[in-house]
């Protein structure tokens, strides 16, 4: 089964683009299945069901969405296998923008739109930096010069990804996207496959539902920052 992980900030058009690409894949005879990993709520299931794609929408709720995603990948893969899909799309809500859902040996796709600020490509981090394919949406709402400048910024963050402009509303470019998805690596299992980027470390008192502020309530993996003395960077 071909596996594609898709990430991108909220409301950038992931579901609009993917549902149309899945439609094109199915018209060409490739069955698709979609799992949407989301945090709190989502109506995306209806959009996929409308076009006849088997879909599972699952919510991390109180858990770190990234950990929730990684802990459920094998089961998600098994479910998609069970639908008889030839192409399995995992759509995440962009996790928390600190991570990347992309896997080594699977096709990693990042969706961003042209209406975000000029620094967005730098801010959304590893999900863009480690993607194989970057799909840019909402290009019809900006000038050509802006599309080019934005593309340049994406290129600066990720020098090797294929960049494509796609219109999620009209579906323009989705047929080409489907052709690229058809070329995604064929996997028989995700067990032992590696993430391209590490998940956040946690297990502190706040992970265990502590809500009070104060040093005396903090236990476990607690990292203290230095303020006013220049930036302290994380290793990532």
């Amino acid at each position, binding site marked *: 089964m071909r596996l594609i992980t898709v990430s991108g900030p909220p409301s950038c058009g992931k579901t609009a683009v993917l549902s149309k690409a899945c439609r094109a894949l199915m018209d060409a005879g490739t069955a698709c299945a979609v799992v949407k990993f989301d945090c709190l709520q989502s109506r995306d299931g209806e959009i996929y069901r409308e076009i006849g794609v088997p879909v599972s929408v699952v919510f991390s709720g109180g858990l770190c969405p990234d950990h929730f995603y990684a802990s459920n990948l094998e089961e998600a893969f098994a479910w998609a296998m069970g639908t008889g899909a030839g192409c399995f799309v995992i759509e995440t809500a962009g996790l928390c923008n600190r991570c990347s859902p992309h896997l080594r040996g699977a096709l990693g796709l990042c969706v961003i739109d042209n209406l975000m600020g000029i620094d967005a490509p730098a801010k959304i981090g590893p999900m863009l930096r480690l993607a194989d394919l970057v799909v840019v949406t909402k290009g019809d709402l*900006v*000038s050509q*010069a802006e599309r080019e400048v*934005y*593309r340049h910024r994406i*290129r600066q963050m990720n020098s090797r990804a294929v960049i494509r402009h796609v219109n999620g509303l009209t579906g323009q470019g*989705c047929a080409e996207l489907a052709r690229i998805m058809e070329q995604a690596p064929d996997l028989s299992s995700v067990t032992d496959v590696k993430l391209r980027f590490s998940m956040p470390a946690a297990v502190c008192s706040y992970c265990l539902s502590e809500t009070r502020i104060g040093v005396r309530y903090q236990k476990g993996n607690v990292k203290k920052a230095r303020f006013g003395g220049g930036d302290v960077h994380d290793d990532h």
Partner: protein
Amino acid sequence: MSTTIIEGVFVPRTMTLTAGRDKSGRPEACDVSFAAGQVTALLGPTGSGKSRFLSDIESMAQGDTPTGRTLLLDGRSPDADERFALTGRLVAQLTQNMNFVLDMGVLDFLTTHAESRGAADPKDVADRVFAAANALAGEPFSPEIQLTQLSGGQSRALMIADTALLSWSPVLLIDEIENAGVDKKKALELLVQSDKIIVMATHDPVLALSAHRRLVFEHGAVRAVVERSGREEGVLARLSAMETEISRVRERLRRGAAVDGSKAT
């Protein structure tokens, strides 16, 4: 056929948009071909399919847009690689979108754009675009001002100058330049170069008659192709003279001058 390449862009000598279908799915009347040096005007009521037609060219439609049209360059379909290598290079487009959304200063934006286009001296190109935009805009603006703070006319002037001087492409698409709040004659002079394929959607009679031919749209499809006749050239001359007169009077009124032949107070 020999291939022409300018600044790394493959330059087609002809471009054809095959007949698609209208909003009800009925087949379009005919294919439309374009040649370099030819200006084509698109006419028809709002919603009749002019912008869609431009967008089919811009995206190099291959039967995958709502109209089902296919773009042929020099008589053949560009392959997938060519198509996407050319996207953003084949076509320079001036759309009706009047405002910028990126949070950048004007000169910073132009310099980055010149960089992205691989200009040898991005700063110099940016300065030239900035100067041309300021000459075109009604009210001048500073190089540091944020793109999002520009007025509609200033934004449009900047887009026009950028398209003319920075975004060199063999095909130029213009969508309703007369709505720009800038001097449309000056803007066209800056934009129109004889070696390009020029396609412009317009509601303006002078602009429409300036074109070599007109495509008439109805219900999402091309209904007729009309060449400009010799008699129409006479109409164009008359309308242009009227427009010059209107501009002259408008300028005088703006400056507080009388227009009945008496001296201004």
